[in-house]
């Protein structure tokens, strides 16, 4: 008898979704007696909502979005909890064109920035501002797919976006890598966590073993994805035939390098968090997002379902 798990991604089937699609395709979940269905998503906020409402059992979402949900819906009966950290660093970054003369965060003061209203980098920008002493900026809201175009055309001076998304999009618009200036949040004093696997409280209570089994299988898959991203992309292509394999492979590699297999992740251990860092993030998010109540880091995170540390030692040595 398999336990069904409905899983909600944060975004569409792109390179990084290989982390979930590979173990599905290779039957790792089946081996754990889980029947996992993975659905594409449209933003972490929605992923959190859908898990909280019970429409999904588990999901993949930005830690900041999860914290915000907790803080703004203190009475919600079924608040999701993060059970495994995947992006040890938020992949958020500020992009500008070199020719605009923005070299350091301080240069952003008074500039026009573009990003969707829900963009993680935009929402966390106050933290970035505070950490780097950046003066006030002007925001222009736009659809995700528009922002790189607007930057390339000079309609805005800078944009925020996920490193592995905006970089590739800018290149696709004919901007040479050499002309792009990137300020990654983690390298500019914003040491926030990125996306985590979340599960609904109800589901955790009812099926704790299933969650553990899920994370085991996921970890097994993650090891293979990190070891051979090229092979992993094949499973994404299998699920969604329209993806551009070369592009998504690059995206996956960039995600692994910038958010998953980072030095911090190696130090903290894949899937785990460092509690003080999480607590700091919680207070930063509460300030930056102007939430209704403070955020209790222990309410949003539990390490109780993680596989043993040895099993989670998946990073290839040396690299």
């Amino acid at each position: 008898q398999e336990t069904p798990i409905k899983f909600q991604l944060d975004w569409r089937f792109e390179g990084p979704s290989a982390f979930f699609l590979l173990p599905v395709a290779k039957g790792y979940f089946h081996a754990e007696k889980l029947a996992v269905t993975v659905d594409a998503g449209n933003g972490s906020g929605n992923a959190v909502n859908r898990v909280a409402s019970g429409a999904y059992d588990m999901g993949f979402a930005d830690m900041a979005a999860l914290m915000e949900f907790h803080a703004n819906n203190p009475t919600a009966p079924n608040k999701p909890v993060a059970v495994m950290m995947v992006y040890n660093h938020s992949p958020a970054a500020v992009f500008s064109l070199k020719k605009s003369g923005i070299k350091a965060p301080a240069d952003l003061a008074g500039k026009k920035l573009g990003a969707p209203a829900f963009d993680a980098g935009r929402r966390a920008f106050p933290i970035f501002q505070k950490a780097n002493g950046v003066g006030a900026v002007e925001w222009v809201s736009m659809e995700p797919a528009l922002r790189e175009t607007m930057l390339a055309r000079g309609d805005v001076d800078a944009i925020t976006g996920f490193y592995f998304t905006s970089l590739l999009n800018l290149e696709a618009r004919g901007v040479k890598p050499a002309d792009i200036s990137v300020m990654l949040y983690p390298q500019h004093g914003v040491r926030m966590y990125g996306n985590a696997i979340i599960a609904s409280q109800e589901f955790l209570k009812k099926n704790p073993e299933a969650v553990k089994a899920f994370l085991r299988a996921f970890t097994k898959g993650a090891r293979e994805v990190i070891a051979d991203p090229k092979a992993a992309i094949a499973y994404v292509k299998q699920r969604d035939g329209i993806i551009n394999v070369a592009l998504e492979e690059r995206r996956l590699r960039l995600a692994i390098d910038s958010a998953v297999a980072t030095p911090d992740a190696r130090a903290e251990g894949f899937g785990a968090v460092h509690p003080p860092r999480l607590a700091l993030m919680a207070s930063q998010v509460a300030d930056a997002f102007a939430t209704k109540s403070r955020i209790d880091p222990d309410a949003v995170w539990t390490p109780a379902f993680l596989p043993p540390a040895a099993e989670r030692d998946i990073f290839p040595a040396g690299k």
Partner: protein
Amino acid sequence: MKHQKRLERWAPWVLLLAVVIVWQVVCSAFEVSEFIFPSPLRIWDQFLEFRGEILRHSWRTFWVTMVGFGLAIVVGVLLGFVIGSSRLAYAAMYPLMTAFNALPKAAFVPILVVWFGIGVGPAVLTAFLISFFPITVNIATGLATLEPELEDVLRVLGAKRWDVLVKVGLPRSLPHFYGSLKVAITLAFVGTTVSEMNAANEGIGYLLVSAGSAMQMGLAFAGLVAVGIMAMVMYELFAWIEKRTTAWAHRGSHAA
């Protein structure tokens, strides 16, 4: 009779109240969380709290919609004339317009933004693009199905095609024209809002996404309510004009 009139006057309010009450009761009884479906009270709360902001964004959305809608009426009527009065134009343009209209305008907003920059341009154009079609269709259908007996009344006087359209075609299809305006105005609001959701710093569409991304569902719904109110105001305007111009058509048992 007078009683009936009064009843009709109040009917929409009674219905509205009933809907709101049911909604509130359901929300309270099942303890539906705000992020799933905010309750009317919560929406009202947010409405009051942010009334200044909502008003400002509503006004923007309203006038942008009106510009796009005005364009849609002009172009829709002219296109309807052309399609409705020439079989060839009908055969050539109708299928393509149907095809075009089935495309989600949201997909074009980014292109419009690239062409016109962020601002009123894309919103006006989206409102226009999304709303001219029902007008065109109704005018065209009205003209194409004109009874030849009525047409002959003018033709026998040597009237030109245009005369026939203006003196017989339009008046006869006026009730359906108003119907199409009621459909079109709703689409125009949708168009503006969708465009603002894609790229803008102002307007209810902007309010929706920014409230949505800050998980302020109550505020987002308050924005939706504002759009609904604006549409209802426009409806009442049309209904008023309609009553004064098409009484002749509403003379059936239904009217008695």
